[in-house]
């Protein structure tokens, strides 16, 4: 009887040990790791990834001279777009006192330097151009740091993440931190690291921004979603990118 007790004890200890070890190795993971092998293959093959078309469109827009000044992105930043390498890893970023997302900065550049009307948020053109720019940083670690400039926005973003909202009264953290890895319906709840935006989401059958994804969750908990391009959105994006700092950028990622 005593031997049996000892054995049970041992098994108990080993399994606790295994669980802790697993929790440590899988401390932070991209949504990529919990996807099916088929979806991973779709993301990995640049010719099969449906986002390839947005990258092509983005490249065309990059070189397109337009507006009163007949300037294209390429006129200042170079034909290949390689000068944008690493740029996406720093956004959202405080630019002349305002927190800007990558999309916001592209639009800002368009309005001020090209003298053109800004693209609508979530329009195909803006997504294509953002994907093209972010794709230049593929594989580089996300490098959003806490600085004197962004700390108040980062704090607000943090607060949004832990803020319960909507009729279901849920915060981001309750699912994506406390229950990450468990299931919601049939799908695994990811840890919400925005490593691959803009993403090709199979559910959307299209490319979409992080803000679209965040609005999805907000309407899911029956809250009033933050507006596209709003400061609240940028703050939440900033916090999420800071939380994922060091993880490699996958743009354009594929998600189910």
């Amino acid at each position, binding site marked *: 009887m005593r031997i049996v007790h000892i054995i049970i004890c041992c098994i108990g200890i080993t399994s606790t040990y295994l669980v802790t070890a697993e929790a440590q190795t899988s401390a932070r993971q991209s949504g990529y790791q919990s996807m099916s092998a088929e979806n991973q293959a779709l993301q990995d*093959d640049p*010719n*099969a990834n*449906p986002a*390839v*078309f947005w990258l092509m*469109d983005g490249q065309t827009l990059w070189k397109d001279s337009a507006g009163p000044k007949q300037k294209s992105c390429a006129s200042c930043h170079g034909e290949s777009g390689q000068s944008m390498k690493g740029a996406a890893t720093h956004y959202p970023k405080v630019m002349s006192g305002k927190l800007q997302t990558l999309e916001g900065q592209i639009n800002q550049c368009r309005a001020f330097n090209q003298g053109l009307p800004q693209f609508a948020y979530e329009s*195909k053109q803006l997504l294509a151009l953002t994907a093209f720019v972010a794709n230049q940083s593929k594989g580089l670690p996300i490098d959003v740091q806490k600085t004197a400039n962004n700390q108040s926005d980062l704090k607000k973003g943090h607060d949004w993440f832990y803020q319960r909202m909507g009729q279901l009264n849920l915060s981001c953290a309750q699912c994506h931190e406390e229950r990450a890895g468990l299931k919601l319906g049939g799908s695994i709840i990811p840890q919400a690291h925005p490593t691959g935006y803009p993403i090709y989401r199979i559910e959307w059958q*299209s490319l979409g921004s992080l803000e679209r994804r965040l609005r999805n969750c907000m309407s899911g908990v029956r809250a009033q979603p933050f507006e596209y391009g709003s400061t609240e959105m940028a703050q939440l994006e900033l916090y999420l990118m800071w939380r994922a700092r060091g993880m490699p950028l996958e743009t354009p990622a594929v998600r189910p």
Partner: protein
Amino acid sequence: MSKTSRTVITMPDKAKRGEIIEIRAIAQHDMETGFRYDQNGKRIPRDIIRSFTCSYGGVEVFKADFYPGVGANPMVIFSTIATESGTLQFEWTGDDGYEALNQAQITVT
């Protein structure tokens, strides 16, 4: 932009005679089913790719019909036997005058 004539073909450019080669063809298309309604309750008309064909040296080697159940940006993966050096022509046709054309060369030794 959602429906352009952009397509991508992935296949080997060299093959041995008699070898089975895999061809992947993807086209940018929204594949609007015709069963959806817009915000005003108006039905969005169907706008899909209807057919895809591949001809190898002028001979049709593969054909597929598409239906509203097919998702956006459809990818077709199929195989054929490398018989001779030449051109493979890929053609997509669909609703509302949609047409896309792509070509690929293969050298068979």
